[in-house]
């Protein structure tokens, strides 16, 4: 019996090649999309689960409240770690402080490389069961210890054993290699939540905490004086086996508050634990509550995956029922020779299984073929899980569900035919089947239109935010991070040397890069300020030439100038700050801070330095040559970039011999702010195209059968004088109506979803009606194009030919 089914199914597939290609191809595309999304979702959900203790590891976060608004922060004061260890020792297995990660210069003799890493307390390795290739989990006990990644070890030492070798860190400290760790995969990222607006980087080294203290005086001060109000360190903890995240969170929430010196308690900091499994997926906080994050995209793409697969299944159902007439005779014969209905259902289900299986194999091929491309697009390192039994079990499930879904309706429908009618040839595929097919087509195109409209809106949002004025000139602007102390006190010499090359128009230093905010301060006072108003203002420490370098726009007053000695204490505000402070005539106003009185000499138009989707925060610019971390260069326009960079590198090399130039272009760094949105745009573009393609594939098949079915009608109409255009109209009209109906359903749904999505962004685009109109019309045109081939072909057939068969 089974063999008979297989034969019939196989010969059937082989005989109707066009139909088979559409069917298997469409289904394969759908399954491939589902597989890709499945792999992606799995990868997202697997973030940080490869650390053994991941269920009990958490990052300590802090909610601070000011002016009715709660913000969630990662940075903590130095003594907090000790306090948690000593007073709450029973609740924690491990508490570990870490520096913010960053680029540092690692050197071995003449070889200098910029490596991304952090300084951490020694418990870190045990807590994360760090994958050591050499050395053990006590490696960071030594005050000069550093552990490096496999790839860093290779870069410096080649095949030599790096253990116990000494290196230099930031041209300053001598460190000893005490361990080598396995390169971490992309889905293992301890600092994941910190890189919302930049590409996450792979950790290349971890150095001992003692080293951090000795290399940085301000850290030493914080430690020795137990500064509770300087928040500069990350804090990680592993809770004890018998406690829960929630109970420990509740216990420790006021620890920080209790220890704050009087007068600084107004922000009411509450600390809590952020579980490791949420670091990647749920790191967006609003008003102190986790409101999701990447998990939203995981859900969204999950739904898209299911829908695309559904579209492909619908194709299968649609084409199978449309072909019912061809199979009807077989059903009739089988029934008269003794087949029971459930045997026929079984037969058709088996065929569906066979097709799905073929499609699945093809889909696996597609996934293998396009996986590198997909990885690049989604910034992933996904491998095809050949040896993972769970993957194959899930796939088997997927095949079964798909074949059931795709085959159930045709099976039930086809097996219901009554043999007398079928064999007499009087069966007309009934009205119910036709209307069912119409419903399926409407479902397909509804999904397609929603995806297209969604893509258009995502595009508009990105474009809208990119077109937002940034308040400075990104062109030819280069930022260099000062990773060593070599430039300290040599500002003028460096600036002169750079300008002398003729490729640098201007140079200035600043505390934060142009695309980020590194400092913000509280405690500003001014005339007319409400005493209850808690200030929190972004602080940029810059050199005199900053305005000229970044080319900001002054709205009022003047820029910093060396001609006024008093400018060393003057402030320039951005417009947001003027509004925030409620100053009517800001120029000449005095602002007080801990270090004294400051005069406002100018107001600049807002500079976009953080999220392009959020309002710009109030900021104060002041002169301070000791707090700068970045050197900003404005290149002379029209010179060769490579040559310019070469000359700049030479100059920097004179000041900091051997240290590689760690530079970024501002415009490139700015682009990274859109990474999540851009990735989503690309993926949704691809998925909508595939959705339309699959839908049209089905439509094409359907149109073919419709045209075949109506051959006689078309013949008669032609004999009676119908023209080709009028026949074309006749044949396409039905589909056009279906797609318009789809549009009517899709537009409100798409509007609803996209409105929700846009609410993630404070600075957001509008959704005028034509966005949706374009989507509907675009899909409609594609669909007409699809149908027209068959329609025109059918309309052009010589009526003698089509009528002769009768």
């Amino acid at each position, binding site marked *: *019996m089974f063999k008979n089914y297989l034969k019939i199914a196989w010969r059937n597939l082989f*005989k109707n090649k066009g139909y088979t290609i559409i069917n298997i191809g469409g289904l394969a595309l759908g399954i491939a999309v589902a597989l890709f999304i499945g792999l992606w979702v799995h990868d997202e959900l697997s973030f940080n689960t490869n650390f053994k203790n991941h269920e009990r590891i958490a990052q300590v976060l802090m909610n601070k409240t000011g002016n009715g608004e709660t913000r969630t922060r990662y940075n903590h004061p130095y003594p907090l770690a000790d306090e948690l260890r000593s007073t709450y020792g029973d609740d924690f297995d491990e508490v570990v402080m870490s520096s913010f990660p960053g680029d540092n210069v690692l050197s071995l003799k003449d070889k200098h490389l910029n490596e991304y890493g952090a300084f951490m307390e020694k418990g870190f390795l045990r807590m994360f069961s760090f994958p050591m290739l050499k050395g053990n989990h006590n490696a960071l006990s030594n005050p000069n210890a550093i552990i490096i990644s496999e790839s860093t070890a290779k870069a410096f030492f080649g095949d030599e054993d790096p253990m116990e070798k000494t290196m230099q860190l930031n041209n300053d400290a001598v460190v000893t290699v005490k361990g080598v760790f396995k390169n971490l995969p992309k889905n293992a990222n301890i600092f994941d939540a910190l890189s919302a607006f930049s590409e996450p980087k792979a950790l290349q080294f971890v150095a001992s905490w003692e080293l951090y203290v000795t290399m940085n005086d301000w850290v030493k001060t914080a430690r020795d004086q137990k500064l509770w109000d300087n928040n500069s360190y990350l804090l990680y903890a592993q809770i004890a086996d018998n406690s829960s995240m929630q109970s420990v969170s509740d216990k420790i929430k006021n620890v920080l508050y209790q220890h704050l010196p009087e007068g600084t308690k107004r922000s009411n900091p509450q600390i809590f634990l952020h579980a490791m499994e949420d670091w990647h997926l749920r790191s967006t906080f609003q008003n102190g509550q986790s409101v999701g994050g990447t998990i939203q995209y995981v859900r969204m793409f999950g739904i898209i995956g299911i829908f695309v697969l559904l579209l492909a299944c619908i194709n299968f159902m649609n084409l199978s029922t449309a072909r019912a007439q061809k199979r009807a*005779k077989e059903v009739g014969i089988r029934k008269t020779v003794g087949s*029971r209905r459930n*045997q026929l259902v079984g037969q058709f289900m088996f065929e569906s299984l066979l097709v799905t299986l073929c499609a699945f194999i093809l889909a696996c091929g597609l996934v293998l073929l396009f996986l590198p491309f997909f990885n690049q697009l989604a910034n992933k390192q996904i491998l095809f899980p050949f040896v993972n039994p769970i993957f194959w079990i899930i796939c088997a499930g997927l095949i079964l569900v798909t074949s059931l879904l795709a085959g159930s309706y045709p099976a039930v429908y086809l097996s219901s035919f009554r043999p007398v009618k079928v064999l007499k040839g009087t069966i007309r595929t009934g009205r119910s089947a036709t209307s069912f097919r119409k419903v399926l087509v409407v479902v397909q195109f509804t999904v397609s239109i929603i995806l297209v409209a969604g893509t258009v809106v995502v595009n508009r949002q990105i474009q809208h935010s990119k077109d937002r004025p940034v308040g400075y000139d990104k062109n030819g602007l280069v930022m260099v991070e000062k990773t060593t102390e070599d430039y300290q006190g040599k500002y003028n010499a460096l600036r002169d040397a750079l300008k002398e090359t003729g490729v640098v128009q201007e140079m200035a230093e600043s505390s934060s890069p142009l695309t980020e905010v590194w400092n913000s301060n509280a405690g500003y006072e001014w005339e007319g300020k409400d005493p209850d108003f808690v200030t929190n203002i972004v602080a940029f420490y810059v050199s005199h030439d900053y305005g000229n370098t970044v080319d900001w726009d002054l709205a009022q007053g003047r820029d910093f100038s060396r001609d006024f000695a008093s400018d060393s204490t003057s402030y320039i505000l951005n417009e947001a700050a003027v509004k925030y402070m409620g100053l009517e005539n800001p120029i000449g106003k005095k602002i007080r801070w801990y270090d004294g009185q400051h005069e406002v000499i100018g107001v600049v138009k807002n500079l976009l330095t953080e999220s392009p989707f959020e309002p710009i925060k109030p900021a104060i610019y002041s002169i301070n040559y000791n707090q700068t971390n970045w050197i900003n260069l404005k290149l002379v326009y029209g010179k060769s970039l490579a040559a310019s960079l070469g000359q700049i590198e030479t100059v920097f090399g004179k000041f900091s011999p051997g240290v590689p130039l760690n530079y970024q272009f501002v415009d490139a760094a700015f682009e990274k702010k859109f990474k999540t949105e851009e990735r989503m745009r690309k993926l949704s573009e691809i998925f909508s195209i595939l959705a339309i393609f699959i839908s049209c594939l089905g439509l094409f098949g359907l149109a073919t059968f419709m045209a075949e079915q109506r051959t006689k009608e078309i013949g008669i109409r032609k004999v009676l004088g119908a023209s080709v255009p009028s026949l074309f109209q006749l044949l396409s009209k039905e589909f056009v109506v279906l797609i318009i109906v789809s549009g009517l359903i899709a537009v409100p749904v798409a509007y609803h979803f996209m409105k929700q999505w846009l609410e993630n962004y404070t600075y957001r685009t509008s959704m005028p009606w034509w966005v949706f109109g374009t989507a509907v019309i675009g899909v409609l045109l594609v669909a007409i194009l699809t149908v027209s081939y068959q329609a025109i072909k059918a309309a052009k057939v010589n009526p003698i030919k089509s009528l002769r068969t009768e």
Partner: protein
Amino acid sequence: MLLQLKNIFKWVNSGGQRIFLLKDINLEVAEGEFISVMGPSGSGKSTLLNVIGMLDTFDEGEYNFLDESVHTLKEKHRSNLYKEYIGFVFQSYHLLDDLTVQENLEMPLLYKKFKGSERKAMVADMLDRFNIVGKKDLFPAQLSGGQQQLVGVARALIANPKLILADEPTGNLNSQQSEEIMELFKKLNQEEGVTIIQVTHSEKNAAYGSRIINLLDGRKV
């Protein structure tokens, strides 16, 4: 007695009028008979055959088949009954285009759950009896009409039915092929005792049977 029809009526309602397809049909068929049903187009020949074959229902009357009253049976029972005892031969053969001769013959056996070795033996026997061993791996499209109908008859016979219903079995065949098929029927009837009811237009073919039933407008005349 193989089967018995008593006062069978079948009608359709069209535009408020009742159109009779079968009107008061009474018929008794004994085992071993060879009956020809004749009549002009639309006289109800095929309908009668379908009713006998239980592929179609009727609206009034009684139908007993081997002492089972068909009109009281449920659909499932009824189909079991015809699967067991009746073989069909069609005017347009109705072979499955995607299966070879051998596979077409095997199909009814599959549904009757014969074992593989039995099936092989029975198919081989049929091929032998009908002298089509050489054609066993050909597809229907590769055969002439007469040969296709030969396969059709073989398929109807393979599960040893008590009754063969043939709806114009020679309608699509030329005279020589017709003759061959009718000779075959005669032989089956006489030598193997298979009961046959055939619908036919041709007096010549009807003469092969032992009894002729004439229909006109759904009525026996």
